């Protein structure tokens, strides 16, 4: 019987998505694990893998189709021995596709590995999702191999199995630790398929270094997503950058006063301790409200004008990055923002954030001031249109009215998506931010 390939759900709440690209055409043979298509939502792009072996008899939804409902039949697979033509001819109409909903377990299970995002990378589930409600793609591995992989932080799917029928056993994971026995091209990321120019191959790169002079650390899912999303963002988004020096002398003083006035809790600790970054989040959120034209997302069909200011904040975690989102930051007090940040940063490090806590957002803040960075530019985190790169606050000599003065200056650089925000508009947003951060009292208005 021909097998229906259904529109997968990227998350439990997803109802429809775009069929971005077909990587196989009618008549192509596929085997389990082959990537056959790419599916997009506003949040992520995901690969659809074949679960069964066979021949693509018919593609029912052409690539580029937007808003394909979850569980619609998108293609028909003829299994071995079946006549491809008749399997395709007998392709079910839409209503025939009343299959049980795509297993919500798949996206949920994918979440821990797929959580990552960068200052410029929106989250995207990296794990394969079943293209039909049948059994999900299974990776065979021994219990010990799984435990070792977890301990070493190695992505098992990247390890070449040497056990019976390719089962990943302990020695494979041990070998992978030192860079041996990794799959030659483990699950090429979606972005790679679309890349117009291929860089040097892994082999060519490795040949440049003496054998034994390096350790090859296998990528985990987070690293792959970071690489994939950043590449797409930097390549496809026409970035431009606006830098401004903000005098935060008053902010520093205000922060000290506010923190000093913090009431003590039961155990004698202050109820809050606000950071400069907490004010930056608040200021950016308010600035977007003042310049609503800059609180937007580019889509091919239309410009999405966001109502709230959801600020993603880049948090560095071991071996990667994640961007928890402060929702409606413009409506929250700085102390609430501060508390939320502390909580989410801690859970981010423990990799315990829920997808809805790091997906979405209308802008981002990336602060490297604590590392002594004066100024830098960040890569936009799609589908957002802006990201604010925040440098270190430091005392600098400034010239005012013909006199040299000392002021605490913090340089910020806003990266903008030129498709959505023109230069003047971007500059307006920076000016609004600067006005707020230099006059923190305005944030309480």
């Amino acid at each position, binding site marked *: 019987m021909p097998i229906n390939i259904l529109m997968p759900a990227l998350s439990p709440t997803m109802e429809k998505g775009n069929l971005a690209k077909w990587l196989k055409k009618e008549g192509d043979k596929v085997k389990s694990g082959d990537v056959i298509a790419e599916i997009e939502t506003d949040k992520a792009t995901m690969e659809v893998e074949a679960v069964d072996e066979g021949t693509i008899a018919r593609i029912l939804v052409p690539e580029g189709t937007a808003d394909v409902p979850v569980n619609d039949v998108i293609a028909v697979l003829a299994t071995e021995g079946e006549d491809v033509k008749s399997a395709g001819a007998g392709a079910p109409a839409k209503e025939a596709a009343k299959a049980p909903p795509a297993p919500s377990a798949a996206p949920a299970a994918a979440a821990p590995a797929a959580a990552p995002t960068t200052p410029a990378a929106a989250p995207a589930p990296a794990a394969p999702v079943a293209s039909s409600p049948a059994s999900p793609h299974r990776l065979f591995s*021994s*219990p*010990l*191999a799984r*435990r070792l992989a977890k301990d070493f932080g190695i992505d098992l799917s990247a390890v070449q199995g040497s*056990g*019976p029928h390719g089962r990943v056993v*302990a020695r494979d994971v041990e070998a992978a630790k030192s860079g041996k026995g990794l799959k030659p091209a483990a699950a090429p990321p979606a972005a790679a398929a679309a890349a117009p120019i291929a860089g040097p191959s892994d082999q060519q790169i490795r040949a440049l270094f003496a054998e034994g002079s390096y350790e090859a650390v296998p990528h985990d899912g987070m690293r792959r997503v970071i690489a994939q999303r950043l590449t797409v963002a930097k390549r496809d988004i026409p970035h431009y950058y606006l830098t401004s020096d903000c005098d935060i002398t008053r902010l520093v003083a205000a922060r000290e006063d506010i923190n000093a006035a913090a009431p003590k809790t039961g155990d004698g600790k202050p109820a809050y301790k606000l950071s400069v970054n907490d004010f930056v989040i608040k200021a950016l959120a308010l600035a977007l409200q003042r310049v609503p034209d800059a609180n937007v997302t580019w889509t091919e069909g239309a410009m999405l004008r966001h109502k709230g200011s959801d600020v993603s904040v880049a948090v560095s975690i071991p071996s990667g990055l994640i961007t928890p989102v402060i929702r409606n930051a413009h409506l929250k007090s700085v102390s609430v923002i501060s508390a939320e940040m502390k909580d989410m940063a801690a859970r981010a490090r423990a990799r315990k954030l829920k997808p809805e806590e790091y997906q979405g957002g209308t802008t981002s803040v990336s602060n490297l001031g604590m590392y002594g960075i004066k100024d830098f530019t960040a890569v936009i985190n799609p589908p957002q249109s802006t990201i604010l790169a925040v440098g270190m606050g430091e005392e600098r000599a400034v010239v005012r009215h013909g006199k040299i003065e000392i002021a605490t200056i913090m340089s910020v650089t806003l990266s903008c998506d030129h498709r959505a925000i023109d230069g003047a508009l971007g500059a307006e947003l920076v000016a609004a931010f600067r006005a707020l951060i230099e006059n923190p009292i305005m944030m309480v208005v």
Partner: protein
Amino acid sequence: MADTSFDVVIIGSGPGGYVAAIRAAQLGLKTAIVEKQFLGGICLNWGCIPTKALLRSAEIYHYMQHAKDYGLSADNVSFDAKAVVQRSRGVSKRLNDGVGFLMKKNKIAVIWGEATIEAPGRLTVKASSAEAPKGALGAGSYQAKHIVIATGARPRVLPGLEPDKKLIWTYFEAMVPERMPKSLLVVGSGAIGIEFASFFRTMGADVTVVEVLPQILPVEDAEIAAFARKALEKQGIKIRVATKVTKLDKKADSVVATLDDGKGKTETIEVERVISAVGVVGNIEGLGLEKLGVKTDRGCVVIDGHGRSSVPGIYAIGDVAGPPMLAHKAEHEGVICVEAIKGLNPHPMDKRLIPGCTYCHPQIASVGLTEARAKEEGRDIRVGRFPFVGNGKAIALGEDQGLVKVIFDKKTGQLLGAHMVGAEVTELIQGYVVAMNLETTEEELMHTVFPHPTLSEMIKEAVLDAYGRVLNI
């Protein structure tokens, strides 16, 4: 004229050789096996199998002597030594015939005689004095694309302890005694020595075991060996460890042995018979290996993980290819070797996962690392133990003396070793062997349901104990 050209010729029809031959035939290779004396080799004819038959007689005799422990009566229990031996020989004969049948069934040519490899691809077989089975090919020249040496091993001979087959026995003579000796000295406390000690003791002999190392069953875990030693001594077996037999004075129908405990104390004991069980050495002679330049080391052919020797086209498996010299290791090596010849790219054997069994009473079985070895390797370990006294089935059987011990890697939960002493443990060990082969951790073992009431429940209990969760003790 008979066909003399084969894809694979295997020299030796022991458990390694004949299993390799069957596997080769299954894979469609034209196969022949060369044997000079017994189809089935030592294992079937003079080793594993006939000793198990003898030990079974001893075991039943032991139970009959203890019938009243079970509420039964059996008076005037005795045995007929000749009949015991006869039964053992009958068992061997039956299996020996079985191998002949298997060769026929798989269309494997049997070449009767002694083989010498002339060159890769070519061998000469000389007639043997033993009577050839029906349908076997005889002496002559044979061609084989692949030659597998599976010639096994023979008893090691130590200077001064040379077996004379009359007073000083090897396992060959010990297996077919005309009568049970009144007193016996067993030199060496490996599996062979301990099994004979156990057999002859049960049959009433006064048995002394001398071991040069500080522990009997030297390859076993020290705790298990100590447990076994206590049990054997309780049965009346005298055990001297760290002791050497320096001299054997042969009398008319007895031997006076001089024992040296290494601290300058010597003593002499007089025994009717001596069994030399000081290990086995590979049969590498007479095959023409030196001329061919086949690399050997300490009496064994040096091979890679697929049985390949240093000379292309020549392979070795089993005892002749090095320790551990065990039938089941030989069988598996044979299969791997033949599959590699066929180009199937089999997995080399992990020698750590080869179990070892000793069929004395109580039995001993083990796989993997001993506690001492694991510590030597610098591993952080967790040890679990479970005694037979905590197992319902063991108590019902009247076999409440025994111990199951497991060793885990503390960090990864990898099962590193399992060691057992007690009733039927040789039938239990494979539970751990399977687990180790599948690389299970403690978690899977704890999640496995074991049937009740069985001795196998102790497999799980020992694991639980390693993690502080033991139930029935």
